[in-house]
Every structure is written in C-alpha cells, then in structure tokens.
C-alpha cells in the first residue's frame, strides 16, 4: 500500500505545451529551468502467446537544468516473469538547439541520447530501450506548435547490448535499428481559458515505427490517447497502442498505457 501511495505521489508537470506532451515520444521542448517532475507510467500489454498480460511500471524523475538542457532517470519494474521485479533503468538527456517562438506558435529542435540497462531475458526481435533491452539511443526531434495543434517528429538510432552478463544478445538478431515517430496533439478543452484551474483535455495520435538494421525487419504502431491536465500541473494520460503491421517478432505489442505526472516548480 505504501508503494501505491508513493506511486500516486510521483507525477509530473511540464512547462511544455500540453498538446505536445505526448505519451510515447518526447517533444523538442524542455521543462523550465529548476523544475522537477515525477511521473509513473504503467503499461498493460497483451501477450501474443496465451491469454496473459504483462505489466510494466516505470517511475521516472525529470529535471530542467536550463531552458536548453533537461535530464530524465527512470527505472523499469515488470511482472513479465510472475512477480514484480526491478529489471533495469535508463538515463536520458535532451538538448534543445533551436528555438523559434511567436505568439501561440513555436518551432523547436532538439538532440537527445538515452542509455538503458536491463537484466531481463531477450525474448523478441524488437529493440525496446524502455524496459526490455540494454543499449543506447541517439536521435533528433522537431516540434511545431500552431495555436491548439502540435506536430512532432523524431528519428533515432538504437544500439542494443547484452542484457547484463546473463543474457547475451542473440547473434541471429539485428542489434541495431532506426526508430521513427510522428505525433499529433490537439487541445480540445477548454475552448477559452479563464484560469489555471480549468481541466485541459488533449487528444493525441502517434505513429511509431522501427526498422532493424541491417535485416530490414519492421513494425509500425498507432497509438491514440486522451490526456487530462488538472490545475495546470497534474497530468493523466490514457493511451492504447496497436500494431498496424510487423514482420519482426514481438511478444506483446498491443495494450494500454497509463501515465500520471506531477511537477514541482523552482526546485534548486
């Protein structure tokens, strides 16, 4: 129960435009300097084999070092092998290198890097640094805000390693991949802002694709989501991820993702 309360306490805020606070990708915008965010992501994915579901919990902390640099640290907890076990973690850093603002508009670009470690068994072709594989990711993203609509795209390179000393990366599989994303978000409510207490509702849709290098095996997913922002600082995302096409082997591609965030302002 205490863990449960801790989880509830965890959750973030961002200083980004909410309509670009996507569930599966990060926008090019950063948090405000000195702000600290906590988030908890919970994914419930259906296993392709059998009737089981596997649940991943990902507590994450985020900090705005400056308006141009931010960092995240996350840990991965999963029940894929019967009980909940901490399987690994990741560090993420993002540098916003281009910023062009206008009234109710912006175009921003950022470069990011992620390093993940994981000690779970390697059980699929897909390379997933969020809770499955050890490895690193290097990428760029670009985000355009146009009043109530945000569009964001990302392209990154993934390199997987062995998962600890116990699970070697299978030699028969590609350990590199390109990952590409395209995300859309729209602020639906309120129609007109009066104060910070109004609940914001955003609708989002993301396309997430991966192609393994060099064998060319690919998947493409679609992930619609609805997001609520309470009191301009608490965020709740409800998303569903569905595989559209794939010729690589995955164990549990489809399912629900829930995320709760809370932000603390001016901490340092």
């Amino acid at each position, binding site marked *: 129960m205490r863990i449960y309360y801790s989880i509830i306490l965890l959750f973030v805020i961002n200083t980004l435009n909410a309509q670009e606070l996507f569930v599966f990708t990060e926008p090019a915008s950063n948090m405000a300097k000195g702000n600290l965010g906590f988030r908890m992501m919970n994914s419930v994915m259906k296993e392709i084999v059998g009737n089981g579901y596997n649940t991943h919990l990902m507590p994450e902390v985020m900090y705005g070092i400056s*308006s141009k640099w931010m960092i995240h640290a996350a840990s991965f907890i999963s029940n894929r092998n019967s009980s909940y076990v901490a399987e690994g973690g990741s560090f993420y850093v993002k540098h916003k290198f281009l910023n062009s603002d206008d009234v109710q508009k912006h175009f921003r670009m950022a470069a990011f890097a992620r390093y993940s470690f994981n000690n779970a068994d390697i059980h699929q072709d897909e390379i997933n640094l969020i809770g499955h594989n050890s490895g690193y990711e290097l990428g760029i993203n670009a985000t355009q805000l146009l009043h109530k609509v945000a569009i964001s795209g990302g392209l990154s390179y993934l390199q997987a390693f062995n998962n600890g000393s116990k699970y070697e990366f299978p030699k028969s599989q590609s350990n590199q991949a390109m990952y590409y994303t395209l995300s859309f978000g729209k602020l639906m409510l309120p129609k007109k*802002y009066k104060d910070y207490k109004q609940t914001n509702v955003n609708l989002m849709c993301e396309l997430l694709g991966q192609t393994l290098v060099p064998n060319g095996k690919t998947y493409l997913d679609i992930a619609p989501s609805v997001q609520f922002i309470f009191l301009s600082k608490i965020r709740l995302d409800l998303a569903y991820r569905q595989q559209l096409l794939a010729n690589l082997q995955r164990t549990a591609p489809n399912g629900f993702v829930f995320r709760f965030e809370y932000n603390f302002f001016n901490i340092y």
Partner: protein
Amino acid sequence: MKKIILILSIAFIAQIATAQITKGTLQASGLTCSMCNLAIKKSLEKISFIDTIVPNVETASYELTFKEGTSVNLQEIKNAVEKAGFSVAQLSFTVNRKSLENLNNNTFTINGFTYNIISRLPINKANGTPSFYITDRGFLSEKKYKKFKSANKISENELIINIAQLL
C-alpha cells in the same frame, strides 16, 4: 500657518519623488496551454522587485506591478521567461512623471539604467504618463527587432535600453 506647513510638506514630498517604473505588461510567446502559462508565472514569482502578477491565460500575457523603492531590472523579466522555455513577444512598462521631467537627448535614467526613446509622440503633460516597450533583441519578435535595427534606431550599447512609445 498650518496651511503653509501643509503646502511646504506637499512641495517637499513632490521633490523627493524619484524616477520610477510603476507597472508593466508582458506578452509571452511560444505557448498556448495553461500549464506553460503557469510555468512562466512561477518563474516570474522568483523576481524580488515584482509585487503582483495578474496572468491572462488565454492571451499568455501578464500584468505586473513593481514594489515601490526597488530597482526594476527589466532584463530579469526576459531571463525568467526564457528560463521557463519561452520568449518575450512584448514587454511594456509605465514610468512616473518624474522620470520624464529632464529628458536628455531623448534618454532618461532610472536606477542606473538608461532608457533611450527611439520613437515617441510629443510627451505632453496632459497625456498622463506614457507607456513604452523595449525594442532590444529578445524583448520582441526577431522580425520586429530587425525592423528597428535596419532603421538604425537601436543603440548597441549594453548599458542602454532602447524603447519605443506604446501607441
């Protein structure tokens, strides 16, 4: 006698009234949602000379009042907006009449900052106190800044804040 003392007191108070920036309006850019708006407000709250902040969430603008007797550094407002991850679209402010009494070559000085008026209407006593907006880089859109710059109106001296009268 009482009347004379009163008149003298008023005259004395008028004498010691100092040049001062009394209030300001900030228009921020790069945002739509209330969450970002709040982030800017929280960043502004850290500035010691700001007394009150009244945000307009719909337009991303903020009405600011400043604490009396404090030194207002408008650069700090710009820095606070940028720390929150956004930009200034316009920063305007109002000065008291004392500030404009001794205009020197279209400049006036408040708390060590020199304000260079690059565009203004005749400052008529009947007009009340005029408002100005800053025309330096980072205090307005890059497009507007370039327009002022190409008209050779911007002084590059770091100690001088270039301003235009808000019409």
